[in-house]
């Protein structure tokens, strides 16, 4: 037994925690006062530290520890959140990520982190690179007096009426105290025996988690005398000092009201101070609530980790079942036995449900891809000196694992593209009457058997003439052709191989990898990508992806004695037309289909299918599309629609023209799946 068996779990969980930290840091930047966020980050960092120390990755533990200290400072209002500080923390997270990746790849997770640790230490000491650290008025210092809310005053008031005295007690633990939380608990227990604790500072939750230095203040109502309380507390070991100060509720209330009034008078000068403080108090209270909330949601949603390989095996087995299901359905049709028929139908229904469940199990929310984008966008915007707000909509939309794994890079590319080429610099935006901050919307949603992912920016849009000129210069289109292109067709030119419109080559998206790579990646997933744009208003890239890659709906067709499958996703409709309705134009046979001229593709000729039967008076046509273009595939007859399992032709037959794969039919025979994209030019 060694640690290696835990390594996988460690890596997975570390990644999750880093992800949480990343997300929450971004949140924190938006709401620097929200202590619940800091707590969230702190928790993740703390767990990460513990895990990495257990696993023996010391650099990792060290850096996390240092980061934790800074977070602690923020939480205790010793450090004010600024983007400079966050930059350093982000860098630290980058280092952590690099280390985890190194471990995941079999490395030792060692990394030179001294510099970043030093930076973090400086921040912790309050010297930070840009020295924006201010000492917040810490309530636990000098004055004992606490402030109370309306509710607390009420409680105090009522206790007083019932003969209780109110005390404020400052408890100081010994510096070498080991079990701070335990001592706190014992103090509270002692106090609760003698009276009732109304309030504590820091709050109880923080005390329990040992998130305080050495002292804390509790407000207690009790019938006992101050001295008696003091003695009770001093009985708890490792207590250095106890101050019990009785106070009068009414006086305090008056004082606080007066102070509030004074503050109001001062408001002209220091308008923000009080509200901010209030906010902090609220946030502090809130801080304890999400704690409970997250715990609750975690227990409500039980999950187990399953190796993706096992799911793949399950999927493969199920695919076998689907093939046999097809076979059974065929046999039962042939035999026409009512009972068999009924059973098979029932089995089919059950297996359809099963299919849904298995497919769903492989579904992963696109969130797993999306959640690394805010970081990227933030960094990119800073590098480019642009202001960008990334809006993510529909992150919960689910996609097959295999698609998820592939979709990340194209999306990164499109996002970089939108920020680099789309969103303008703030001064340009101001000049053109737009808000300084550009918006990039990343939106995912389901529609039918597809998932759409859209990337929309409100930037400069695509310059039609510039694109066209470039396309002509680069020989992507000829001048004659260029004149007939619609706007949309021109925009699509940016996906052509060897195309880049940026005036200067930037480090961001001018790496020589064009949008053509994006297009081909998405097409290899069975998806499509389109672009629409309005100059000056922005652009919209839309990606359409299949829900799953392994089981697809097809239309089975027959050509002479051979059967082929055409994916339903590319079919617009089917038609049966008379031979006379076929026209000749430009050496090509075409038909008039709903007012459009659609070229015909004779599969029999393209696939060199041997003729055995005479041709008939009517021809069956499957109208398929690729983007805006259409074609009519000429077949002999339609067999029907079927769910089939997509199989590859293996490693021997690679790149067969216009065949994207194969499937096994109910009768055990193999049918080839037609790749319509290759047939439409």
């Amino acid at each position: 037994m060694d640690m290696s068996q835990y390594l996988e779990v460690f890596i997975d969980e570390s990644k999750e925690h880093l992800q949480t930290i990343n997300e929450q840091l971004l949140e924190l930047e938006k709401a620097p006062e929200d202590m619940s966020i800091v707590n969230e980050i702190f928790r993740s960092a703390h767990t990460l530290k513990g895990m990495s120390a257990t696993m023996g990755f010391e650099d990792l533990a060290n850096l996390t520890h240092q980061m934790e200290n800074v977070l602690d400072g923020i939480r205790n209002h010793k450090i004010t959140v600024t983007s400079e500080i966050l930059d350093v923390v982000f860098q630290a997270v980058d280092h952590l990520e690099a280390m985890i990746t190194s471990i995941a790849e079999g490395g030792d997770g060692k990394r030179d982190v001294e510099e970043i640790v030093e930076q973090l230490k400086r921040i912790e000491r309050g010297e930070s690179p840009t020295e924006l650290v201010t000492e917040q008025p810490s309530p636990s210092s000098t004055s004992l007096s606490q402030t109370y809310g309306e509710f607390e005053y009420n409680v105090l008031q009522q206790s007083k009426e019932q003969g209780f005295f109110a005390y404020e007690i400052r408890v100081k633990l010994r510096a070498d105290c080991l079990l701070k939380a335990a001592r706190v608990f014992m103090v509270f227990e002692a106090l609760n025996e003698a009276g009732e604790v109304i309030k504590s500072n820091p709050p109880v939750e923080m005390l329990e988690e040992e998130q305080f230095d050495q002292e804390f203040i509790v407000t207690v109502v009790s019938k006992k005398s101050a001295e008696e309380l003091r003695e009770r507390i001093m009985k708890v070991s490792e207590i250095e000092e106890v101050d019990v100060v009785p106070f009068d509720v009414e006086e305090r209330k008056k004082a606080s009201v007066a102070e509030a009034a004074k503050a109001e008078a001062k408001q002209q000068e220091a308008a923000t101070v009080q509200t901010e403080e209030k906010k902090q108090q609220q946030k502090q209270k809130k801080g304890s609530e999400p704690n409970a909330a997250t715990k609750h949601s975690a227990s409500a949603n039980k999950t187990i980790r399953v190796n993706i390989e096992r799911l793949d095996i399950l999927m493969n087995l199920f695919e076998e079942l689907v093939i046999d299901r097809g076979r059974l359905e065929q046999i039962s049709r042939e035999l026409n036995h009512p009972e068999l028929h009924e059973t098979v139908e029932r089995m089919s229904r059950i297996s359809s449900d099963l299919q849904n469940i298995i497919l769903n199990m492989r579904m992963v929310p696109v969130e797993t891809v999306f959640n690394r984008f805010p970081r990227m966008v933030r960094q990119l915007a800073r590098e480019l000196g642009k202001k960008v707000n990334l809006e993510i909509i529909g992150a919960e939309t689910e996609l097959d694992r295999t698609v998820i794994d592939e979709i990340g890079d194209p999306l990164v590319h499109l996002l970089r593209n939108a920020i680099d080429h789309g969103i303008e610099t703030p001064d340009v935006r101001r000049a053109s009457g737009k808000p300084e901050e550009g918006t990039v919307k990343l939106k995912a949603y389901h529609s039918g058997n597809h998932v759409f992912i859209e990337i929309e920016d409100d930037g400069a849009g695509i310059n039609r003439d510039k694109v066209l000129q470039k396309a002509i210069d680069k020989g992507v289109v000829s001048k004659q052709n260029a004149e007939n292109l619609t706007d949309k067709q021109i925009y699509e030119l940016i996906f052509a191989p060897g195309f880049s419109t940026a005036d200067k080559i930037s480090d961001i998206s001018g790496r020589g990898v064009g949008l053509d790579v994006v297009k081909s990646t998405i097409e290899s997933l069975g998806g499509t990508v389109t672009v629409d744009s309005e100059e000056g208003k922005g652009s919209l890239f839309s990606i359409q992806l299949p829900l799953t890659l392994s089981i697809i709906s097809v239309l089975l067709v027959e050509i002479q004695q051979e059967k082929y499958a055409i994916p339903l996703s590319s079919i617009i409709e089917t038609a049966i037309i008379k031979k006379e309705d076929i026209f000749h134009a430009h050496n090509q046979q075409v038909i008039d289909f709903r007012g459009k001229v659609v070229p015909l593709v004779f599969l029999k000729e393209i696939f060199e299918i041997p003729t055995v039967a005479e041709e008939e008076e009517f021809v069956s046509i499957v109208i398929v599309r690729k983007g805006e273009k259409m074609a009519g595939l000429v077949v002999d007859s339609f067999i029907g629609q079927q769910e089939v399992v997509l199989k590859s032709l293996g490693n021997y037959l690679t790149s067969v023209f216009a065949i994207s794969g194969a499937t096994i039919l109910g009768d055990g025979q193999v049918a080839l799946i037609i790749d319509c994209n290759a047939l439409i030019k």
Partner: protein
Amino acid sequence: MATVQESELKVIVFQLKNEEYALPVQFVRSIEKVQHITRVPRTAHYVKGVINLRGVVTPIIDLRERFGFSSVPYSEQTRIIIVALQDIEVGLIVDAASDVLDVPASSIEPPPETIEAVEADYIHGVAKVGKRLLILLNLEKVLGTERRSS
């Protein structure tokens, strides 16, 4: 297995145009009877298509055509030898597959210059076992060269 010396090669023997050929057993996955083959358009002429081999789509090569022999209709004796070379799995159509033999390594000779019909390239060597003459195939060459679809 104790009697088998290390210098012996276990081979599958099959017939092709009245000659006996042999393939080392470690390449052979199984031997199948001829079943329905789905033609794959626009591939090399010797690629007969694909079959459903227990749920796996497997390409089939007609060895007669691969070697440029005249083709004959498939009979009861015709077999498909499923071979695997690295990550490639392919079925080879042969006239018949007869038996498994141990060939002493010492009896394997390099291919003679003038062996009938089959290009010397595809041949790894020739082995004499008793009175039989076995032609040992070089599977890499048989599958490797010009295997791209035309």
